[in-house]
């Protein structure tokens, strides 16, 4: 069963069309990357199944079922947790409160507050601190921990390396590999190619809102990257 599938999807912000006939599928245990330059519509893929961008033509299925009318919480309830670009930590709440809120969806699974603290010990140490008082890397851990608290079948990571130091990106890559090893499916939207190569198995290259290439990461050549990703 596919956890998330786009079939010939067009999506819009108001009248402006961003995605054009996008199709891809993520099954259980798969690690997929969506690549492309800034502005090609990578985040719009996420925004479409979150109900921010409006779905025109095509169909989206969540956990094997047609999405129907997409509301903001539809994806979360279908077992898809999103770590958004910019983290979007709720600053009025503490680290612990942010994590507790992550368990909105009553899905069975092994992720608990304790397990998130074991994965990111720094969050345990700073659990009473305001979420936005953390460093960028710690906020990213908090955003990931909050997403894991929902026991997702699919974890969507939108530009997780954005604004982080290389050492932190390496640490996060270890976490993603570990999560993937435990069977969590991942959708990685990223421009940091070394992170993508470590984590993902397959990729879809976006250009001008359309998927122009797909394949395995092993097949992805520097020439292709230069053509579609490098600025």
């Amino acid at each position, binding site marked *: 069963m596919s956890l998330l599938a786009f079939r010939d999807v067009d999506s819009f912000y108001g009248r402006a069309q961003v995605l054009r006939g996008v199709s891809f599928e993520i099954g259980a245990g798969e690690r997929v990357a969506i690549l492309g330059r800034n502005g090609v519509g990578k985040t719009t893929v996420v925004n479409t199944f979150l109900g921010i961008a409006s779905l025109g033509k095509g169909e989206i299925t969540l956990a094997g079922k047609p999405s129907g009318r997409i509301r903001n919480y539809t*994806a979360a309830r279908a077992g898809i947790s999103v770590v958004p670009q910019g983290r979007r930590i709720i600053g009025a709440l503490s680290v612990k409160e942010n994590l507790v809120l992550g368990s909105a969806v009553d899905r069975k699974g092994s992720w608990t507050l304790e397990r998130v603290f074991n994965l990111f010990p720094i969050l345990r140490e*700073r659990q009473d601190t305001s979420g936005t008082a953390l460093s960028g890397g710690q906020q990213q851990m908090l955003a990931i921990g909050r997403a894991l608290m929902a026991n997702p079948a699919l974890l969507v990571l939108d530009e997780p390396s954005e604004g982080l130091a290389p050492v932190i990106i390496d640490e996060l890559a270890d976490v993603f590999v570990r999560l993937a090893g435990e069977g969590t499916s991942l959708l990685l939207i990223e421009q940091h190619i070394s992170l993508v190569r470590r984590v993902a198995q397959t990729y879809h290259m976006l250009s001008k809102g359309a998927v122009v290439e797909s394949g395995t990461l092993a097949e992805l050549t520097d020439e292709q990257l230069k053509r579609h990703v490098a600025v």
Partner: protein
Amino acid sequence: MTSLPEKLIGAAAPRPLDAQRSKLPLLLALVVAVGGCVFPFVVTSTLTLSLLTQALIGAMLATGVGFLVRQNGMVSFGHALFYGLGGYILGVLVSRGIVPIELALILAIVVPTVLAFVLGLVITRIPGVAFGMLTLACAQAFYELALKVRGLANGDDGLAVTFPARIFGVPVSLLQDPHSMFVICWVVLMIALGSLWLLMRSHYGLLTFAIKANEERARFIGYETLVPRAAIYAISALLAATAGVLATFYNAFISPDMLHWTLSGSALIMAIIGGTKAVWGPALGAVVFFFIKEIAGDATEHWPAVIGGILIVVTVFVPIGLSGLLVRVFSGRRA
């Protein structure tokens, strides 16, 4: 799995949700709660107790308005609707002998609360000033109804409510004597504040606070956000309706003034003076408001100007309100 290097750990920042987690404030709250019950045995002046009883009723209304601001970030200009509706339901049902007083009391609290929830499902979708204007419009619509429909409760003249001798076996006269009514209002207010305090620290309280901070993010996590906002609006209306019921028992009189926008405005001023960050802030603001009104009212007929001046001073120099100032002073943080 290794954690990130220690050098990346920044300085600890203070907790965002009040500094009320130590046991000292809890102990202090307990002392204040018990102290209030013995207050009428210490202060024998009926006038002072009557004034304080009215202040406590105002505190209940202001607490409702402040709770809405704190949890939903919404400013209501029409909470007199629920205050007046509670009073009118009790007064009209009892005066006309339509239902027993006990049932009238329950309806007077439940009906405004349910109305607020249903209304909240519509109007809490609308942010900012438009929400405030809608609350004002709803309250003024009921005010006009109470004013124009004389068959309801004598229109502008109001209605003197005649209560039966007892309610739940308790003499109603206790609800009209300042000494006993002060204690009743105090106990009701303490129960309300305690319940709100617990609610604010529950998962639901966290959720509503998160919705206020970032509604879109709360939805993406998987929460439906409209019902929690409507529920907070209904809880704040419940407090306002309770205040209206207490006022009707105490004064044995209902009039359209109970629904007028000036009462909503006063409750908002009380909440601003007291501050909304602490759950007890609006109640403190109400007590201060009533005493300033009383003292300034003795000195000049232009007492609203004094209140207005104080409101400006608080808004400009102490935007966190008196409660916020007290919390900072006693917790040793920078004011």
